[in-house]
């Protein structure tokens, strides 16, 4: 569909959001990501049955951790999309980018870092 979205997002593909490890979510922030989104299939529509439900619990826990360590839980989010929802994907990237621009760069990257919002997303490619 070639819908335009901000060029600040980098996608990391995994077989299923079931493969998105909370450790990788946290790691992305450790390296300096300003935000991370996990994009999975619609709930109940997981090609691998329940992968996206597990991913949801991990994102929830990552949110809690980010809140407690002072980064802010809003920097991580999960979205459920079907393969026909390219438009919504573009919207989500826009929304998330705007939210992160509002929050400012991650304090982890500090002043030295480039002033760009970068998100890494786990996308289901199955």
């Amino acid at each position, binding site marked *: 569909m070639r819908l335009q979205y901000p060029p600040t997002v980098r996608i990391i593909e995994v*077989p299923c959001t079931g493969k998105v*490890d909370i450790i990788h979510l946290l*790691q992305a922030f450790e390296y300096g990501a300003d935000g991370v989104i996990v994009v999975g299939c*619609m709930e109940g529509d997981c090609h*691998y*049955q329940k*992968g996206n439900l597990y991913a949801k619990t991990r994102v929830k826990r990552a949110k809690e951790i980010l809140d407690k360590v002072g980064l802010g839980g809003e920097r991580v989010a999960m979205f459920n999309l079907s393969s026909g929802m390219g438009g919504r994907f573009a919207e989500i990237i826009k929304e998330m980018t705007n939210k992160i621009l509002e929050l400012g760069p991650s304090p982890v990257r500090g002043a030295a870092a480039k002033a760009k919002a970068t998100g890494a997303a786990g996308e289901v490619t199955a």
Partner: protein
Amino acid sequence: MTKVIKEHQLNRMVVAACTPITHEPLFRETMIDAGLNKYLFEMANIRNQDSWVHMKEPEKATEKAKDLVRMAVARASLLKPLMEKPLTVIQRAVVIGGGVAGLNAALNLGDQGFETIVLEKDDQLGGNARNIHHTIEGLEVAAYLDGLIERVKSHDKIQVLTGALVVGYQGYKGNFTTEVLVGPGMYERKIDHGVTVVATGAHEYQPKEFLYGQHHRIMTQLELGHFLHDQAAEAAQWGRVAMIQCVGSRNEENPNCSRICCQGAVKYALQLKKINPETEVLILYRDMRTYGLMEDYYMEARNQGVLFARFDPERLPEVMNDNGALSITFIDHVLERPVTLPLDAVILSAGAWANDTEELASLLKLPRNASGFFIEAHAKLRPVDFASEGIFLCGMAHSPKLISESIAQAQAAASRAGAFLADTNQTISGVTAHVDPERCAACLVCVRTCPYGVPQINQENVSEINVALCQGCGTCASECPAKVIQVSHFEDDQLSAKIKTLF
């Protein structure tokens, strides 16, 4: 590429181009031709993820492209060669469901020369098509169906089991075992087969709304079809008929459009007009979805004076039964005013609801949507495959569709299934989970979380994953509290490297 690989003695390959979904297999072939393991290949999708979606920001897109390539290189450097075990494929197909879709799939597979077994839970074949007398084009369904059933039954490669209930399902692509209880005697039968086609169909929704069941002239489309077939003379007496669309569709309980009911209403309206041109037919609709060439029939219905009035789902028409005298009140969308009309019959265009496959879905471990329809692996790229290899899908089990569409999809599923059976040089994907037994705590987390029930605690008291059964989803790897499971090709360090290289 082969030449470059050989010339420079390369041991990894990164291609920065388009989507791996369509192109990775081709490049992997090249890897093999060049004598490299096909898993030592990585693609950076700088088209779909970059140039297409950032057309107006070429500079930023270029920066992103560099990042994407850097990520791909970082991962590629850590990729490992994977061995794929050869797969034996049992040369037999099982088709679950003996409606038009299942029968066509079976016939196609039989004609390809594959032994095929049709499992139909009912005591007769045919499914929902038995309730349809002719299509909108005027083709006779019963004659077609009888012919189809005859061809299937007399086919020397096809065996039909009616009254067959699937009670067990084991194995993996190419090597399934289905347990069925057959016939009134419920005798057990085990079938070893290489592929499965799911064609369990759908049925007409039994309305709860619009006084359905309280008056013999409030009927569903299928009931009207039978009525017009059996009692046409009586129908010719009708002065006015109203049809209400989207009954049991596009609501909270079943959010999908049932697709077939709009053309159904047009079809029966034309039939009513044919029996008696004086009969007034009123179709109350939300949106008329006579897609494709069926638009012609919609035009025809309008030309013949069928009335179409749109209603708002917030303000539904009301059917009234006053001591046997039917009438309807609806808000006319032009007048913006309630209109009440006496009627001889009310036809409810009840939607198509998926047949109950809860148990089957859990046995076969197949995904279904909230309305109970099965979900294909990819709407565009793998439309008749399930994500689990060796299982295919067709007909209304997938979504409501016309007979012609069910037949087309059955042919597609049968050809995919046939191609699978015919390919006897298959291997088991290398993308599977592996346990490092040293530190496995035998905690059972993987056993409890794997959606396919693959991990088992073995004789050595550690978890073991059968690579033939593993679908490589990675759920167990992310949940294992001891962190001793890795999914080959998506190992933790391979993913970490991608993240790290960005900063």
